[in-house]
C-alpha cells in the first residue's frame, strides 16, 4: 500500500508534541497549548488523510497503510501497524477528540506543560492501539494510556480527584492484567511465537484455551469499556477528571476497551466467543439499563453524563456480541458517535458550566438561568442531549438503529430490555437537560422575574470553546446525516471476504 507513513505519522505527531512540550522552558509554558493544538491538528490531518485514502475496492487484507518493522526480533515482536475501516473510524475519532480536548483545555494555566504532555501521551497511545497489528504493540500502547490518566485526574481534577484517579487506575490495571494473561497464553500457543494479529486471527487456538482466554481478555478489555459490573471506575473517574480528560475518557479511552474486545478477544477466539456470548450479552444489557437508571437518579450533572457513558457503552458491547454485520457496524458507529457526544456533554458540563459556576448540582444550576446567561452552552447541551437520546439526524440514531436491528436478530429477548434502556436514556437525558438548563422557562416572553442571581455575571463562552463545540456538533450531525461515510468503510472491514474479522459474521451464519 502506498502512503504507509500516514498511520505512523499520527503516533509520531502526538509524541513529537510531547517531546516539544517537555523541551519548552518553564517561562514559555503558555506555548504548550499551541504546540498541543498543532500536534493534535497534525495528527487528525494524518488520520483524515488515511481515511480518505482508504481503498475500499481492495480487500480488507492485507490491512492498508501497513508498516512492519522487527522490534524484538528474537521474541517475534514487531512494530506492525495497519488499518481497516474500523481502525480508521476510531483514529478519526481520536483526532477529533484530541483537537477539541485541547480547545476545551485552553484555560489550563497551572503547569500547562505537564498537562498537555500527558494529554498528548494518551492521544498517542490511543492512536497506537487503534492501528496496532501486533498484539504486543497494542498492549504497550494500551498501557501507555493508564498512568497519564492518573496524573491528569489527580493533579488537575475536581471532586474527589485522588480517589477517582486511583480507582480508575486500579481498575484499568486490573483489566490489563487480565489482558496480559491472555496475551501471554496466546503468545505461547501461537505457532512460531508470533503476535501478529492477522496471523493469529487465522490460527485455530485450542478450544479449551479459547474457553478461558476469551472471557479473560474480553472482560479485561471490557473493564475499560465500562462493562457492567466492572464499570464503577467510570462515573467517579469521569467526574473527578478535568474536562479534557473526561472527554478523552469517554471519547477515546472507553473505545480502547471495546476496540480491544473486538479486535483481539472476539477475533482471536471465535469458539470462546460462541460459548460466552449470551452471558456477556446479558451483562451488556444490564449495563445499558443500569447506566440509564442510575443516571436518572443523579443529582450531579457530571454523574449523569458519566452514567450515560456506561449506558452507551452497553449498546456498543451488545452490538459487538450480536455477531451480525448490522450489529457490529452499529457498534463501531456507536463507538464513534458516543465518543463525539460524550465529549460534547462533558465539555459543556465540565468546561462551559462548572468552570464558571463551580457547581454541578442540577438543582443549583436550575436556579441560575443558564439558558439566558450562557445561551451557547444551553444550545450545545441541547444538541448533545438530542444526539445522546438517539434522535434522528444525529449520529446516535443510525448507530442505535443498527444495534437494535442486530440485537433483534441475535437476541430477540434482550431486545425488550434494550428498548427499555433506550426509553430510560431519553428520560434521564431530558431530565438533566430540563432541570439544569430550562427549569421553568426559556423565553422572556411571559416569564415571571427570574430567580435573583446570587453570582456575579458568568464570564462569556470563549472562542476556543465555541470552536470546539462547533466541531463536535458538526461531527455528530454530519455523521447523522451522512452515516454512509463511516458505515461503508466499517462494513468493508467486516464483510469483505478478505478481512481478518470476516469469520465473526460467518461464524454464526445460521
Amino acid at each position, binding site marked *: 500500500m502506498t502512503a504507509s507513513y500516514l498511520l505512523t505519522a499520527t503516533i509520531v505527531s502526538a509524541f513529537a508534541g510531547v517531546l516539544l512540550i517537555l523541551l519548552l522552558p518553564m517561562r514559555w509554558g503558555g506555548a504548550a497549548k499551541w504546540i498541543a493544538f498543532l500536534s493534535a491538528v497534525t495528527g487528525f490531518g494524518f488520520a483524515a488523510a488515511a481515511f480518505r485514502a482508504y481503498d475500499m475496492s481492495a480487500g480488507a487484507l492485507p490491512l492498508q497503510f501497513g508498516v512492519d518493522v522487527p522490534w524484538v526480533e528474537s521474541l517475534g515482536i514487531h512494530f506492525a501497524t495497519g488499518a481497516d475501516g474500523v481502525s480508521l473510524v476510531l483514529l478519526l475519532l481520536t483526532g477529533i477528540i484530541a483537537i477539541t480536548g485541547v480547545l476545551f483545555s485552553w484555560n489550563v494555566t497551572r503547569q500547562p506543560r505537564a498537562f498537555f504532555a500527558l494529554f498528548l501521551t494518551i492521544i498517542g497511545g490511543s492512536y497506537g492501539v487503534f492501528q496496532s497489528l501486533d498484539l504486543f504493540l497494542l498492549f504497550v500502547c494500551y498501557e501507555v494510556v493508564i498512568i497519564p490518566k492518573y496524573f491528569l485526574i489527580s493533579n488537575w481534577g475536581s471532586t474527589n480527584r485522588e480517589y477517582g484517579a486511583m480507582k480508575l487506575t486500579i481498575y484499568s490495571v486490573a483489566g490489563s492484567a487480565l489482558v496480559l494473561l491472555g496475551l501471554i497464553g496466546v503468545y505461547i500457543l501461537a505457532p512460531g511465537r508470533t503476535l501478529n494479529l492477522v496471523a493469529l486471527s487465522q490460527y485455530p487456538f485450542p478450544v479449551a484455551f479459547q474457553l478461558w482466554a476469551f472471557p479473560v481478555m474480553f472482560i479485561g478489555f471490557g473493564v475499560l469499556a465500562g462493562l457492567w459490573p466492572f464499570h464503577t471506575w467510570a462515573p467517579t473517574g469521569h467526574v473527578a477528571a478535568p474536562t479534557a480528560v473526561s472527554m478523552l475518557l469517554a471519547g477515546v479511552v472507553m473505545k480502547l476497551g471495546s476496540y480491544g474486545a473486538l479486535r483481539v478477544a472476539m477475533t482471536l477466539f471465535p469458539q470462546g466467543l460462541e460459548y460466552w456470548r449470551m452471558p456477556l450479552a446479558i451483562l451488556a444489557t444490564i449495563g445499558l439499563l443500569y447506566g440509564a437508571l442510575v443516571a436518572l437518579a443523579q443529582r450531579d450533572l457530571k454523574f449523569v453524563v458519566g452514567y450515560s457513558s456506561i449506558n452507551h457503552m452497553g449498546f456498543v458491547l451488545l452490538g459487538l456480541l450480536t455477531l451480525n*454485520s*448490522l450489529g457490529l*457496524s452499529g457498534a463501531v458507529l456507536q463507538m464513534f458517535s458516543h465518543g463525539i457526544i460524550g465529549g460534547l456533554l462533558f465539555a459543556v458540563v465540565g468546561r462551559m458550566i462548572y468552570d464558571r459556576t463551580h457547581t454541578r448540582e442540577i438543582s443549583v444550576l436550575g436556579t441560575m438561568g443558564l439558558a439566558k446567561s450562557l445561551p451557547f452552552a444551553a444550545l450545545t447541551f*441541547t444538541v448533545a442531549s*438530542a444526539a445522546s*437520546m438517539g*434522535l*434522528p*439526524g444525529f449520529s446516535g*440514531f*443510525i448507530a442505535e*438503529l*443498527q444495534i*437494535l*436491528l442486530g440485537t*433483534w*436478530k441475535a437476541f*430477540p429477548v434482550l431486545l425488550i430490555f434494550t*428498548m427499555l434502556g*433506550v*426509553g430510560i436514556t*431519553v*428520560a434521564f437525558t*431530558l431530565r438533566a437537560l*430540563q432541570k439544569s438548563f*430550562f*427549569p*421553568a*422557562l*426559556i*423565553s*422572556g*416572553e*411571559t*416569564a*415571571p422575574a427570574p430567580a435573583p442571581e446570587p453570582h456575579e455575571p458568568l464570564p462569556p463562552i470563549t472562542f476556543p470553546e465555541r470552536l470546539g463545540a462547533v466541531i463536535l456538533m458538526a461531527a455528530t450531525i454530519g455523521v447523522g446525516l*451522512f*452515516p*454512509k461515510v463511516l*458505515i*461503508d468503510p466499517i*462494513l468493508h472491514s467486516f464483510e469483505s471476504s478478505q478481512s481478518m474479522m470476516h469469520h465473526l459474521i460467518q461464524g454464526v451464519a445460521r
Partner: protein
Amino acid sequence: MSNSLTLLTFIPLIGAIWAALLPSKSTGQLRFAGLFTTLVALALTLSLAFQYDRAAGGLQFAERYEWIPSLHIEYYLAADGLSLVLLVLTALVTPFSLLAFGKGLSKLAVVLVLLLETTLFGTFTALNFVHWFFFYELSLVPAFFLIRLGGTPKATAAATQFFIYTLFAGFAMLLGFLAIYQATHTFDLTELAALARQEKLGHALSAAFPAFSGWISGAVFLGILVGLGVKVPVVPLHTWLPNAYTEAPAPVSMLLTGLLSKMGVYGFLRLLYPLFPGLMFHWQVPLLALAVVTIVFSALAALAQRDLKRIVAYSSVNHLGYCLLGLFAVAAATHADTVNRAAAMNGVILQIFNHGLTASALFCFIGFIEKRSGGLRGLNDFGGLREVAPVFAGLMGIAIFSSLGLPGLNGFVGEFLIFKGSFAIAPGATALAAIGLFVTAVFLLTLIQRVFAGPLAERWKAFPDLSTGERLTVIPAIALMFVLGIYPQLLIGLFNPTVLKLIF
C-alpha cells in the same frame, strides 16, 4: 425542477439560520425573515400543486438517492395529492401562526417555528420509513421548546409529557418497522405497500419470526397504531394533549393542532393503511369502536371543560376522530364498494385540511382573547363581548361555525363526505359517532353564547376589537373557509386521483 421537494424542505431551515443570525431585539426584522421564508415556501408549494399532473396522479417530483446502503435506506421523497394537501396546509398555517404571535414574537420562536416547518415538509414527502421517521421524530425538538414558550412550570411539565409520550410512541412504531425490516429488508414505503397489496407482507413477517408467526403481524400493526395514535391522538392515548394545547402559547397550539396532529393522521394514511389493509379489515370492529370512542368521549369531555383552550383542544381530538372513522370505514368496506369508499376517503383528506385551517384559526382567536384578558380564558369569565368587539365576534363565529360543520363553510363538506361514505359501510358506528356531532354543536354554541352573548361584564367594557394587524392575520383564513366551503373541488381535484390509487 427535479429537486423542488428537497428545496422546499430546506427553505425554512435556511430561513431559521437566517433568523438565528439576526439580532434578537429587532422583532421587525425577525418577523420579516419568518414571513418571507414561509411565504416563499407557500409560493413554492402552490406552484407544485399547480404543476402536479392531476391526470396522471400518483407520486410525482420524486427524488431518490442512496443514503445508508447497508440498511437499504434511501433519501426518497415524492409527493402525491395527499402530500400536496398537507404541504399546502403546512405552508398556510405556519405564516398564520407567525402572524398570530404578534408582538410576542421572539427570535427563538421564529427559529423554532421554521425548524418545525422543515420537519413537517420532510415528513409529508418522505417515502422511506427511516427518512420519514427522521423528520417525524425531529419535529419533537422544536415542538418541545415551542410548548415551553408558554413560560409556566405547567408548560414545562406539559412539554415533557408531550415529548415523552410521542417519543415512546415513536419507539413502538420504530420497533414495528424494525420487525418489518427484518422480514423484508426494505424500509421503502412504496415497496412495502406493493408487498402488502400482494398479501406478502404478513407472510414475510411470519416467516421471519417463526416463533411468533401467529401474532407478529398483529403486534407490528399494534405498535404502529399506538405510535401514530399518540400523535393524532386516539382516545386512551390522548392525555398529553389538553395539557400541551392549553399550556402552549396560542400560536404554538395552532401549529400543534393544525399541523403536528396531522402527522399522525398522515401516518395512518401513508403507513398503516397501505401496509395493513387486511388487518384493518379484519379488526374493523375494534378499530371503528376506537374511532367512535374518540369522537364521543372527546366531545363529552369538551362539554365538561371550562377553559376555552381545553374546549378547543378536545374539539380538535373530536374532529380528528372523524378522520379515523372515515379511514377505518374505508378499510372495513368490501373492495367493491368503490363509491362509498371514495367518498369517505375524500372526506378524510378534506377533513384533514379543513380541521387544520379551522382549528388553528380558533386557537388564533383564543390567543387574541388571552392577550386582551391578561391570560384569562375561562368559559364563564366573559360575556357580551359581541357588543364591544363585533368584528371579533363575527369572525370568530364564522370559525366556530366552520368547526361545527355548517353548510357553506369548509367544515361541512369533509364531514358530510365522511358520514356519507361511512354510513353506507358501517351504519352502526357512524350513527353512534353522530352523537359526537350533536355534542359538538352543543359545546360550540355554548361557547359562543357564554363569550359573546349575554350581559357584558363591567371589566370588559374596554375590550378592544380586532386591530388591523389582527384582521389581516385572520381574514385570509376566514376567506379560505368560505372558498372551500363553496368550491371544495379546488382541493378534491388535487387529491381525488390519489384517493383512487389509495383505495385500490
